[in-house]
């Protein structure tokens, strides 16, 4: 498999190759090359089984990572192809023509992350959510706990106590730390 990857890196500018397991390799590809690369892998290299399309939000780098997972059933080998795209105007070329299920993945990622795949069938239709009017929920900046607390009438419960703070209150209130802070 290493030879194949070397051959590929010449023509498709792949980088960051990580041999995760004997049968699993991750690599990064550029956005422009990606569709060509997976088409090549499917048609020439025999990666006929498309496993998964996933998206990771790297909010601190302002990037979305799309991971295309391909499997070669004959050699029992997996390839995870990462592709970093800009988070601001997140958009990616659609690959729905390569495998039928990709349209579903793209529809879900559009809904959950807001990454657009122009041309993918039904990509703008709601898939899982209904009547959602907030930012796409899988983005890191969406705070699900806060949203739930604001929306779904959580039942009131007794306040919890931190053992350390509680013991301090009970056994040694007014210690140095606070005194110093006041002074400052």
């Amino acid at each position, binding site marked *: 498999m290493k030879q194949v990857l070397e051959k590929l890196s010449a023509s498709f500018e792949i980088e960051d190759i*990580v041999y*995760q*397991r004997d*049968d*699993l390799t*991750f690599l990064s590809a550029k956005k422009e090359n990606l569709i060509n690369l997976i088409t090549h892998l499917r048609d020439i290299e025999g990666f*006929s*089984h*498309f*496993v*998964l399309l*996933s*998206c*990771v*939000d790297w909010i601190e780098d302002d990037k979305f*990572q799309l*991971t295309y*997972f391909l499997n070669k*059933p004959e050699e*029992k080998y*997996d390839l*995870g192809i990462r592709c970093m795209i800009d988070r601001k105007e997140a958009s990616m070329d659609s690959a729905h023509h390569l*495998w*039928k*299920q990709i*349209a*579903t993945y793209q529809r879900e990622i559009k809904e959950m992350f807001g990454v657009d795949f122009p041309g993918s*069938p039904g990509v703008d239709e*709601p*898939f*899982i*959510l*209904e009547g959602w009017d907030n930012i796409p*929920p*899988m983005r*890191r900046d*969406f705070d*699900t*706990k806060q949203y739930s607390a604001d929306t779904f009438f959580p039942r009131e419960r007794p306040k919890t106590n931190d053992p350390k703070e509680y013991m301090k209150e009970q056994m040694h209130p007014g210690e140095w730390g606070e005194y110093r802070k006041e002074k400052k």
Partner: protein
Amino acid sequence: MSLLNIETDRSKYPVKGEDGKLQIDLDSHKYVKLWQGPNHPGVTGNMALELTLAGDEIVESKTHVGYLHRGFEKLIERRLFVQGLPTSIRMCVAEPDSNEYVYSTCVEQLSGIDIPEMAKWIRALLLEMARLQALLRVVPGQGGTFALGLGVQWGVYMRELILDRFEELTGGRVYHMFMTPGGVRGLLPGGFKKRMEENLKEIDQFVINIDNLMYSNSVFKKRAIDVAVLDPSWIDKYGAVGPVARSAGYNRDVRKDYPYLIYDQLDFEPKVMNHSDIYNRSRIRWYDIQTSVDLIRQIMAKMPEKGDIKAETPNVLHWRIPKGETYVRSEASRGEYGLYMVTDGSDKPRRINLRGPSYTQAVALLQDLLVGANIADVAAIMVSLQTCPPEIER
């Protein structure tokens, strides 16, 4: 036979417009829009099919999911690695143990932990038991879709027997939460193997009974053979896996292809068939029941009596995993069941993404397979693909 063969007038059928979509004008009274679901009395769970019918033939179908969406992948992003376990397993209620396995293994793999031998055997035992109980629901369920309810009554009882063993071993009936990252939570209780063997004997008898009741049944055959035939070229095109792929001649089984746990020490051969219709897709699961029963017997005979159950792990309350990503797959009763996990050096996963077989089979494949099918066969086709909506929407 010829009495039933009424030639349909296809002149009324919709044609594709310029945008590639079928032109369906509901107000023309040629078509009926019919929703099947989401309240679904069958065995699959809440999922809706939006069917457009011409007569009793389906001309367009669309899968609607989201009725069971809980946002697991979001929730696990804010849970510690150990806390992710009870959460992640609820992604699929029909066979939760595969979730346990893939989740725990992802965590172990990314932190470089090897689990003890004993834990591997117990995990394999749990996975096989889980496969068995799932199949015991779905195999007679296929009969249920043709209004043959008796098999369901038997199957659910057989499944109860396995659940009793689960309860005894793991302390839980449906959600077991037994494979914590690092190992398992206990050894087999005393007398477990004996009671299990008794149950397996009953299941052996059940296998014969269900063969008589369903697979030899002329009505069942009439309804199932040559209905919704899946072209072998569709398997890769639609990402079909597991029994569906095997019924179409693809010998794909994760247990054989990527032997995990102790499956390389077991002797089994997954059944492969060459004509994927409802009958064979269901039949192959009937063979799988036998394989599973056989595997449970093998595991119980070969597993060691004693041993460590858990590897040493970091303190679970602040278990950090360095940046990395991995994909772990296992063979669930429905086929390849995988989890993609990304970590970023913190004490919580950055992202997990579950790949369930139904994600491809119940959306893209089902939608296209239903076109041209009879309205009466919809439920049967759904069950023959072993649709499980919770793993689509998670």
